[in-house]
């Protein structure tokens, strides 16, 4: 059975709560301190994007399992969902240093590098869903 928690992000405190929920679950599954930091940081970036660009949205954090011939592997999956303005040019936001907020422009490309799997689904005017997975090694 998968453990799931969902955190609403519409204030800065939502960013902190999402981060904490992610760290707790990562610890529970058995991630080491470095991967815990990676997962927590990725959640922080995704939650901040929701707060900055969509004003409100949701971070869902869950455990997932994948079965192979060689056995099963476990991981943590982060889904960041919002009904904000959407992303016009996904290639642009995935470039290092691209920013519209005056930040470092490390957010989304950073999340992609911190996690193992990464996917963006965005429709302009409707919203954005970003999923990112870290597998337990």
């Amino acid at each position, binding site marked *: 059975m998968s453990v799931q928690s969902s955190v609403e992000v519409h204030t800065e405190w939502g*960013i902190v709560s999402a*981060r904490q929920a992610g760290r707790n679950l990562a610890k529970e599954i058995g991630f080491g301190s470095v991967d815990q*930091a*990676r997962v927590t940081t990725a959640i922080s970036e995704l939650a*901040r994007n929701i707060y900055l660009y969509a004003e409100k949205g949701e971070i869902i954090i869950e455990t997932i399992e994948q079965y192979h011939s060689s056995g099963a592997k476990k991981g943590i999956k982060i889904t960041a969902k919002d009904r904000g303005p959407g992303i016009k040019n996904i290639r642009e936001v995935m470039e*290092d240093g691209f920013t519209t907020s005056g930040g470092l422009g*490390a957010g989304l*490309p950073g999340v992609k*590098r*911190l996690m193992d799997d990464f996917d963006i689904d965005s429709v302009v005017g409707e919203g954005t869903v970003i999923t990112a997975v870290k597998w337990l090694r």
Partner: protein
Amino acid sequence: MRIPILKLQQYLLISVQVDLDDQTALQFQEDLLNKIHQEGSAGVVIDLTSVEMIDSFIAKVLGDVVEMSNLMGARVVMTGIQPAVAITLIDMGIILDDVPTALDLEQGLEKLQQELEE
């Protein structure tokens, strides 16, 4: 929440004991600059031993406060960055250029002394 800033002779010492949220980080930036101004401090050590996560926003706030302090004439050294935090920052492609660092508070103070003697 406010991060306490301690004065030790001509230095200011800060030990960040929590994972920073945005507001606390920005408040800290302002508090530190005001304190440097009030006390006429020559150097600052920011110890990050207890910080388990630095994301791009917090990294920017910390990098900025170092530059702002330099503008005012105070040197800043950051100490105690945890392995997981260092790895995550580099993974993210965040490079804190021109930020002097040291392993711990003691070495941080030594480094400050050296920098100020130069």
